[in-house]
């Protein structure tokens, strides 16, 4: 793990050199979150992504680097994933997206096979961004995936409906609300991904396992 500078109030912890960066990131973020919840560490935000964890204190507060080190002590490099990581979130999907046929052509298969590929893959939230509750999902098992060849649409749509299920550039996602978007749309779900009155407000979080199932 390398510590990269990010100002007086933050640090970027880079796990890009580890064998399985996403797992290392998940363990470090969990340890930092636990230290924050117990009061041992005072920071504003902990943002895990594919290779790094950003630890951000309140602006001007200064970052407690000793506290960060203390929280990370004992987080071993090859811990098994904790039980919480393995619970799958099942998302029922109606596969009626406008790009289903085009994706089938790109992957050189049938729309039925695209649905089969999407539902047979166990997905994991690599990081969140773009919009509140928007998780960037990658195949949990890594390696090559037929969807890797599917890029973004040449022109973004100005309006992608809330609940749209999409893929692009090796990722899959559920649009948590209506927004512009350039990904290929496979279908939609009716379960809410974002509720600002709920705790937590997002159905997904970094590290969440997701399985899409055909909504019969």
């Amino acid at each position, binding site marked *: 793990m390398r510590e990269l500078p990010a*100002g*007086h109030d933050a640090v970027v912890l880079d796990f890009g050199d580890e064998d399985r960066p996403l797992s290392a990131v998940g363990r470090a973020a969990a340890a930092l979150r636990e230290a924050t919840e117990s009061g041992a560490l005072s920071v504003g935000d902990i*943002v895990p992504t594919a290779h*790094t964890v*950003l630890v951000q204190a*309140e602006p001007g507060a200064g970052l407690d680097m000793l506290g960060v080190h203390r929280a990370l002590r004992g987080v071993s490099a090859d811990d098994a994933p904790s039980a919480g990581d393995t619970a799958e979130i099942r998302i029922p999907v109606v596969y009626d997206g406008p790009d289903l046929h085009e994706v089938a052509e790109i992957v050189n298969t049938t729309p039925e096979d695209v649905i089969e590929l999407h539902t047979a893959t166990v997905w994991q939230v690599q990081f969140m*961004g773009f919009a509140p509750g928007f998780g960037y999902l990658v195949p949990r098992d890594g390696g090559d995936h037929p969807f890797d060849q599917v890029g973004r649409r040449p022109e973004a749509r100005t309006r992608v409906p809330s609940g749209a299920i999409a893929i692009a550039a090796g990722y899959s996602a559920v649009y948590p609300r209506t927004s512009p978007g350039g990904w290929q749309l496979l279908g939609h779900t009716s379960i809410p991904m974002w509720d600002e009155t709920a705790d937590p407000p997002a159905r997904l979080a*970094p590290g969440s396992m997701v399985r899409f199932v055909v909504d019969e």
Partner: protein
Amino acid sequence: MSASGKKIVVIDTGPLATVQDLGRSGYAHLGVPVSGGADRGSLTLANRLVGNPESAAVIETTMGGLRIRAHGDLLVAVTGARSDVRIDGSLAGTDAASTLHDNAELSIGLPSNGCRNYLAVRGGLDVDEVLGSRSTDTLSGLGPDPLRAEVELPVGTTTGAWPATLTAPVGGDAPDVVELEITDGPRRDHVRSPADLTRGIWEVSAESDRVGVRVDRPAGCDDPLVTHRADADELASEGVPHGAIQIPPSGRPVLFLADHPVTGGYPVIAVLTSSAVDHAAQLVAGNRVRFVPI
């Protein structure tokens, strides 16, 4: 009706006026920007001047143009950009607490220097919280809508001790070149020459908002942009620290402000200090800046 029964009625908003407090940290991992006042120093000063907790909700204006009417006697303070503040047409001081009597009108003019003003009222603005904050997040749309004419803002009852002083002059003339203090960012090695950022001066572009301030080289200036290294590994998206200076492929730096995205894939090569972020939030198109490593 708020517990105090007092309220502010918006008559005119100027280009953009929003409710802001110190934002909603703790949700960035779920894709939620921190948001909050762009110039936090001015926001907290306004609150201190009226005896509020520093985190109370205030109005943030952009390039003046705000007019509001008081319902009930209020104690108010305006901080931030150098602007004429008038109460019923008469000049009132900035960086000072003033009484705004029932039915009186307060206006904030076009700043002669700076961009954003902060209007605090004793008791704070009591609009509904979203995820623990009353801030309008212009990137994600969380929090109250931007203000518009005829909106009524209830005044709360959350106050602190009376302030020790009712004035806090903030000083000095505007420098020709604003110096912004920076420290190293995480991805300096992704650009060809990080020192190009601190070379010479930059000019603020008109495409600047609460998400970020964009800068470019002034016309006729020979100093280089900040170019990506052709051989750098592709950067996976990662968390964006507060005050990040990000280099998009154009080579023109973006100085992120309060509503910045939580994750991004372009290299962050420097980070503004927290007070430099406040200064950056007061920049307007055409201002010139220099980045000073500390």
